[in-house]
């Protein structure tokens, strides 16, 4: 009798507390393509997604893009929000598939910004020759590949062009490095720069954009191949429905995004092209690529 009572109580408790979020958590990797400092916001978003999917969702943060892709490869993550550059890299066997692409200001596209300090006399990339330059992440399209490709087109490498370079592994910190004049210039994600212009205007105010890249596919959300198809489709739906859901809309507003959309991987073709061209112009990179596993 007592046993039954306890079991019933336990069941009620479980139902009450966990509701539908039963089972191992779904791990969602985040990179610095989004601003991760707003912890409470992300926690609430994770709760929102959990409720929609019926499984606990947790965001997993790592310092670099590479760590996130490595976690995806090793099965440590089910989903991740990565950059277009890692997405287009060849993987053998392929373990990623496109989940959704954020729509930002009407299109799933963004730029790379080359920024300098507000008081800097420089107005073009060439002015930064011999200076200190801050990249965001070695696997970032806007924060590294794009400026590298621009230099490669001139037959230069970052090492030959700049006196010194460093990676901050974070777009926001690149903006900081420029704002605080640690670096003379930096390459950042236009979305992050605009985002911070709203949330930390005192930081972006100290910087000035001197160069805008062509439009690239917005850093995509991907899923690991082999993740339960129902979970993938539930996640896809949950993301897509955020636009129509008042609560989801709040998160979209917070992220400064229009919606999460379904787009073809060809959206990232120009990044792939740029990566290839850069490799071609740098023979040692080209040869290295051939030996690469993927």
């Amino acid at each position: 009798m007592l046993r039954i009572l306890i079991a019933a109580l336990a069941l009620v408790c479980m139902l009450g507390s966990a509701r539908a979020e039963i089972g191992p958590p779904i791990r969602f990797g985040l990179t610095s393509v989004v601003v991760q400092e707003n912890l409470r916001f992300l926690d609430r978003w994770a709760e929102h997604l959990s409720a929609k999917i019926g499984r606990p969702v947790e965001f997993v943060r790592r310092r670099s893009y590479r760590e996130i892709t490595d976690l995806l490869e090793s099965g440590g993550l089910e989903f991740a929000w990565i950059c277009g550059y890692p997405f287009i890299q060849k993987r053998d066997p392929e373990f990623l598939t496109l989940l959704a692409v954020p729509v930002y200001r009407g299109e799933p596209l963004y730029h790379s910004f080359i920024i300098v300090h507000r008081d800097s006399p420089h107005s073009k990339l060439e002015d930064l020759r011999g200076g200190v330059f801050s990249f965001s992440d070695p696997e970032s399209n806007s924060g590294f590949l794009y400026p590298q490709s621009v230099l490669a087109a001139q037959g230069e490498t970052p090492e030959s062009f700049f006196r010194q370079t460093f990676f901050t592994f974070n777009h926001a910190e690149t903006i900081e490095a420029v704002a605080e004049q640690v670096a003379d210039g930096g390459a950042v994600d236009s979305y992050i720069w605009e985002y911070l212009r709203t949330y930390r205007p005192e930081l972006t105010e100290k910087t000035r954009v001197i160069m805008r890249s062509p439009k690239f596919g917005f850093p995509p959300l991907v899923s690991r191949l082999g993740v339960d198809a129902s979970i993938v489709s539930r996640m896809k739906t949950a993301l897509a429905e955020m636009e129509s859901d008042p609560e989801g809309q709040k998160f979209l507003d917070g992220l400064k995004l229009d919606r999460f959309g379904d787009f073809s991987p060809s959206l990232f073709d120009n990044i792939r092209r740029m990566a290839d061209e850069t490799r071609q112009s740098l023979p040692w990179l080209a040869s290295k690529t051939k030996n690469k596993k993927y």
Partner: protein
Amino acid sequence: MKLSFLRSWGLSFKFALAITTIVAGVAFTIGAVIVVQDRQRFNQDLEERVLLLARSVAVTAPEAILRNDSWFLYQSLKKMAGQEPGGLQHTRVITAMILSPEGHVLAHLKPKGHPLGLRLKAPDGEEAALLEAAKSAHSAKVQEGSGVGAKGFLEAVIPLFSDEKFLGVVRVRVSTYEVYLQVQRSALLVIGLTLGLVILGSLLGALISRRMVKPLTAMTSGLQAVRRGELTNIAPVPVQDNDELGELAAAFNKMAVELAEKKMLEEQMAVSEKLVALGRITAGVAHEVNNPLAGLLNCIDTLKKHPDDKELMERYLPLLDNGLHRIKDIVKSLLVELRVEDTREMSDGSCLDDLREIVEAEINGRNIQLVWDNHLDDQVQVYKGQIQQIVLNLLKNALEVLPDGGTVTFKSSNNRGSVMLEVDDDGPGIPTEHRNHLFDPFFTTKPNGTGLGLWIVYRLVESMRGVIEVESRPGHGTQFLVTLPTTNLGA
């Protein structure tokens, strides 16, 4: 002595000053020691803290240097500078940097003006020296800037090694301004306390010294009154405490009372003595005038009865004349007028020799030896009348008491601005009971004496501001010594 002026200041002031000085000295010394110790402690505290801050950077720096991760190095500096370590005061990091062994900037807390990868610019002499000292540091150390106040700083230097390879150096500089302010605050507190204690000490000193000095001041004014002779006018000193001063005050009061009593007694005695003297003078005058008057009246009676007796007239007239002259002489002597014109005649000292004959005539064949030793010559000018009168009276006096076979000696000398006149006899001397009345008018021991001789001498000597001394031993003679200042003589 530089401090000799202190001697003229009041005891109460000196006492208060001494207490104040001691209090101020003690307070200031203790305060100064506390301030110095405080400064040392604050500085040590700050040194430990700046080393701790530098260490927090130095722990992770070598790996980042090897990775060439300038951003990480910069951020570690920034995080370190943003730390608010607990403690007495906030440690303000002025600047911090990580330099390569060659002095290139690997990271700088103030990137503007200190670009990455370039050699650090050390503008002035001190900065250059500090930079060199930092580059050559073999172990963690703290160096101090020479600036004071807001410009003061401490700099922790920690060399970075990885597997014994020198990778660079971390420098963290904190402001010592807080320490300075803290020390300033305690110094102000000490000065304030010292001032407070000085005021308190001077008040206390003034209070104590007032209490102590008040009876002394009262006693001093009392003693001054004694000196002026106002013995009955001494205000009693209030006795406050039962200490030494209180005892002194009580003793003084007792003495004042006794003095006043004595003075009153003396005054009473003086009054009665005056009355006695007055009585004696009256009696003397009555006696001296009565004696001849009786004879004179007899003569006149007789002459009245025998108006035609010429023989009687011839016999009595000189008697009448004589008696009236005696009365006149007595009255004249009583009214010795020293400023009479004819007595101001000046003469040299040899005028005294004129007296010798008179004295010898006075001896008139008696067996008395006169020794004459006048050393006054024509170099000295004296009032002839007065000085002759003095010497003659003294000599006559001596002759009257001398028995046969006695010797009377006159000596005179001119001695350092004064004239000395000495009359000695080896007669019977003056009985003790007579000495106090020696110069009283009409005091005489001789049946026929007027008692005016020595009184006249005394009045004359006094009028010339001289001194008369008497030395007498019964059975061994008497010596009168008159000293007259020649300045006044010649005036």
